[in-house]
């Protein structure tokens, strides 16, 4: 026995020695920042994005570019993000196209690392932990808070990095949007230009079916609006008639993962355990599951289910709603609305869809930090990384390439200023068609794909600006100290979630049961901790 132990110990010690080098490589890096001495530039508060992106070139930025070009070396910046199909065939070609711009403007080359959604989180964790070269990455799916907690992200204001080299980023956003990516005051990421708000409880129904049951939707449109804003009575009337006309089809379906977040106008910081039930007026963190909103939602779904509007297989459904509509098995489904939604859903379903909306347009506290861009703390050259990021936010040509690929290969310009597939190319044969522009730094300045209005991004900006916003805008909850409670709560919730929210369980019975199980799992402590964190945040940011 002793000998065995010895042998084991020996192997262990030897291996320790061999491995010890690996983790450490991270530590040095940042010191080499060239000390450009100007401190004059105080343009930190570029409050309004008034197209003055040219102001981006600060003296330091120019100096850094010049120095790089003089040195004769061209550093490479690796940019990582996810799509849904993994590394596309044209990745290196697109990267070299993008490099043409970055080399000319910044003296930097870029390399792209695109991973599919399912593996992105794990692969990023592995790459960031192992010290592989990744300079810029999007934190989507990996999670912004986990990234910050593990120390993967660089403080973007270290040595005024973003102020000196990222003016294009700062001028693309309002200050409160940037502040949304602060954790305890430190800026760890930059928001992306996307739909920040969402129209709650949208319902999408094919026009043909509405015509069939003789529902007059045309008169309900208010001028110029894409969605019909209506109430539950109207919708229930429609669903009832649809069900009567086609009892063999499923009347209504919504995918379970997003029922609460897309139906209720509540603010959900990090997770559903502790939410702001009245986010416009109050900073009180409440219990979702005892709230009237939740009960009303579940009761309504229970009622709809009892009426036979929801498929008995709804809980186990894995086919996309739009595919179900296309195949003719589904008549209505929930969707979160935004400008362009009618066009989007119609394209996906292959027929014209009418969009109804039952809730308000709402913007939750996490709007700006669900998928921020971060700089790896391990990067060799934070300045180069920041400058590339800055370019992606401010240079329309660069943004178009990272969003849509290369002109002539992936896309071509149409006569009216849109772009569309290049000749002989479609979604399948394209070598760079990622479908993830909401994750790109600034799709607002890229070219617009055919089928969307040319004014889409102006409308999106209005939509974002006009949506009802939570008082806790920009608050991020770090649940890492409560990971044990969180895991227990998440497991309890997943036991009831789909049953309650799709109406398979009587809320009179189910909700109290869920509530008591959650309480046992530590819901009260968890909510109290979230409230304390929110209070602290509010005090620090002067929000009352």
């Amino acid at each position, binding site marked *: 026995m002793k*000998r065995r132990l010895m042998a084991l110990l020996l192997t262990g010690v030897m291996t320790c020695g061999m491995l010890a080098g*690996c983790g450490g490589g991270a530590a040095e890096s940042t010191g080499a920042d060239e000390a450009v001495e100007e401190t004059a530039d105080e343009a930190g508060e570029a409050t309004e994005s008034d197209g003055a992106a040219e102001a981006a070139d600060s003296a330091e930025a120019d100096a850094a570019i010049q120095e790089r070009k003089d040195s004769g070396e061209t550093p490479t910046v690796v940019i990582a993000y996810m799509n849904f199909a993994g590394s596309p065939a044209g990745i290196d070609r697109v990267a070299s196209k993008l490099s043409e711009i970055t080399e000319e403007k910044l003296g930097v080359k870029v390399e792209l690392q695109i991973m*599919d*959604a399912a593996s992105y989180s*794990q692969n990023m964790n592995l790459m960031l932990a192992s010290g592989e070269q990744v300079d810029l990455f999007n934190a989507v799916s990996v999670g912004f808070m986990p990234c910050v907690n593990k120390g993967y992200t660089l403080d973007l204001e270290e040595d005024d990095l973003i102020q000196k080299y990222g003016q294009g980023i700062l001028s693309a956003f309002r200050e409160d949007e940037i502040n949304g990516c602060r954790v305890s005051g430190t800026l760890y990421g930059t928001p992306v230009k996307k739909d920040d708000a969402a129209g709650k409880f949208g319902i999408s129904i094919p026009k043909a079916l509405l015509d069939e049951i003789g529902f007059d939707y045309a008169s309900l449109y208010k001028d110029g609006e894409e969605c019909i804003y209506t109430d539950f009575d109207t919708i229930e009337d429609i669903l009832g008639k649809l069900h009567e006309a086609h009892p063999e089809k499923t009347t209504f379906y919504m995918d379970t993962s*997003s029922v609460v977040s897309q139906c209720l106008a509540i603010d959900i910081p990090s997770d559903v355990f502790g939410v702001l039930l009245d986010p416009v007026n109050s900073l009180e963190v409440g219990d979702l599951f005892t709230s009237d909103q939740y009960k009303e939602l579940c009761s309504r779904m229970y009622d709809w289910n009892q009426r036979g509007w929801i498929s008995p297989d709804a809980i186990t459904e894995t086919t996309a709603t739009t*595919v179900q509509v296309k195949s003719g*098995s589904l008549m209505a489904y929930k969707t979160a609305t935004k400008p362009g939604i009618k066009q989007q859903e119609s394209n996906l379903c292959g027929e014209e869809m009418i969009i109804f909306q039952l809730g308000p347009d709402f913007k939750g506290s996490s709007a700006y930090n669900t998928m921020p861009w971060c700089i790896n703390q391990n990067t060799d050259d934070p300045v180069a990384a920041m400058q590339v990021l800055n370019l992606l936010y401010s240079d329309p040509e660069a943004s178009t390439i990272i969003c849509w690929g290369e002109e002539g290969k992936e896309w071509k310009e149409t006569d009216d200023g849109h772009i569309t597939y290049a000749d002989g190319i479609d979604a399948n044969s394209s070598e760079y068609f990622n479908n*993830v522009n909401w994750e790109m730094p600034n799709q607002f300045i890229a070219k617009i794909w055919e089928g969307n209005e040319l004014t889409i991004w102006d409308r999106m900006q209005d939509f974002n600006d006009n949506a009802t916003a939570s008082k806790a805008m920009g608050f991020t909850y770090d649940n890492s100290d409560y990971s044990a409670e969180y895991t227990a709560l998440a497991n309890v919730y997943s036991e009831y979630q789909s049953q309650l929210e799709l109406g398979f369980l009587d809320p009179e019975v189910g909700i109290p049961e869920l509530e008591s199980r959650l309480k046992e799992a530590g819901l009260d402590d968890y909510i109290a901790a979230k409230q304390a964190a929110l209070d602290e945040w509010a005090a620090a940011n002067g929000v009352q």
Partner: protein
Amino acid sequence: MGQEKRFQIFGHIIMTIVTLCAVIPLILLVISSFTDNAVLVRNGYSFFPEKWSLEAYKYIFTSGDSVPHAYLISIVLTIVGTTLGLSITTLMGYALSKTFLPGRGVLTFIVFFTMLFNGGLVPTYINYTNVFGLKNTFFALLVPGLLMNAFNVMMMKSYFVTGVPEEILEAAYIDGATEFQAFFRIALPLAKPIVATIGLFIGIAYWNDWMNGYIYLTKRTDLYSIQNLLNRMIQNIQFLTQNSSVSSNASTALASIPSVAVRMSMAVVGVLPIIIVYPFIQNNFVKGITLGGVKG
């Protein structure tokens, strides 16, 4: 002999039931891969679909991800992996079966210990990428985890202990054979059933594996095996239906992911070669029987 006959009939009845249990769902799999996707979504899986379609197969053989290429990778990987893995496993198993070997207990424990403890994903990844630089190479599919495992070594060892008696080897030594000669001429032929079995296990492990490609091939997706293609597709669907953080953008993505029929046809394509290759492996079992008979 009546009793023998009764046993044979009984055996065939049992095996027919078991085989049917295995084959019926597989027939369903094949049929659904030939079913029109809209019908599949609307009516669910059926043995007698309303409408047949070859679309799924057209899709997988013509779309951007080259299925024939992935096939080639899978086949090369399985052949190389099985050959290498089987060699080192057999040698190791044989060595551990030698009762006279000093330190045999320690070695066995070192092997067995790996079955229970491992460094975990992150350290393993760091080891293979930073120390050995396997990332985005073919070796990343071949080396990590699959080449040899404790289970196979233990099986091999126990077979050599019971199935290849030391006395037979002694006879060879007396004739002046070296250890290697004794192994190759006497022990290995006697161990054919287990070699075929472990070879099959290793082969299946290589054929079925997608984890290595998933973790180590972030850029060289041209090195993806057939299972990697299939799993990427499936995992992404899973991700989209579960992950609420991107769900507002998920609908576009989900709709662009290949249909149910395509997933089914990929699964069929992934299983097919085994049906073709397996009978050849089985022949080795039969050879094992005859040799076993001679041995007594």
